[in-house]
């Protein structure tokens, strides 16, 4: 069965500092990986996705993530955090084949940005 672990429940960074959010997955085949962001009371917005090719993927809002198969990781990074980045971040994994049960989500990481 596939699973996703986000080891950090809550991270606090200062505005302008760099950010890395960790994500580890367990999946038997080539994964399809996502990062979503959720602002309070809102739905989820896709930041970026990976399913093949270059292991460093660029997303919206200046985020990037690196797929490392050897470490089963897909960590999200941003070089300089803005106050508006404060939100909940979810990593998700899904299969490439055609099952409707496509996404398994991690438990999320809450990001607080200090002024």
């Amino acid at each position, binding site marked *: 069965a596939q699973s996703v672990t986000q080891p950090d429940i809550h991270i606090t960074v200062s505005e302008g500092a760099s950010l890395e959010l960790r994500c580890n997955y367990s999946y038997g085949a080539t994964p*399809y990986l996502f990062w979503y962001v959720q602002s309070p009371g809102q739905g*989820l917005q*896709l930041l970026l996705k990976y399913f093949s090719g270059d292991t460093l993927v660029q997303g919206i809002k200046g985020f990037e993530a690196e797929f490392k198969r050897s470490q089963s990781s897909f960590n999200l990074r941003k070089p300089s955090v803005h106050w508006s980045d404060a939100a909940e971040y979810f990593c998700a994994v899904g299969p490439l084949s055609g*099952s409707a*049960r*496509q*996404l398994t*989500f991690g438990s999320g990481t809450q990001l607080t940005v200090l002024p």
Partner: protein
Amino acid sequence: EADIYQTPRYLVIGTGKKITLECSQTMGHDKMYWYQQDPGMELHLIHYSYGVNSTEKGDLSSESTVSRIRTEHFPLTLESARPSHTSQYLCASSAQGARGNTEAFFGQGTRLTVV
């Protein structure tokens, strides 16, 4: 912007009432999903659909039911609401890409409170 809409955004209702949460998408996606999310917690898949007249229960047991009579519409119904149903409900949809599933697009959610 994803074209998937949920109504109502917020609902406070008394115990025993029947409720229907609406979800519509204009992207022509075959696959649709309902997730349940408690505050600050991970998402749990409660229902999904491959297409019209196809519905399946998800990983988390739920007393709700769904229907898929039209591609664009995937309502969720609770016949008799209880306080334990208080949660946020997120609807999502996805297309079947050429190389497998594409990402899921989420609505803004319905926050349900049963008193």
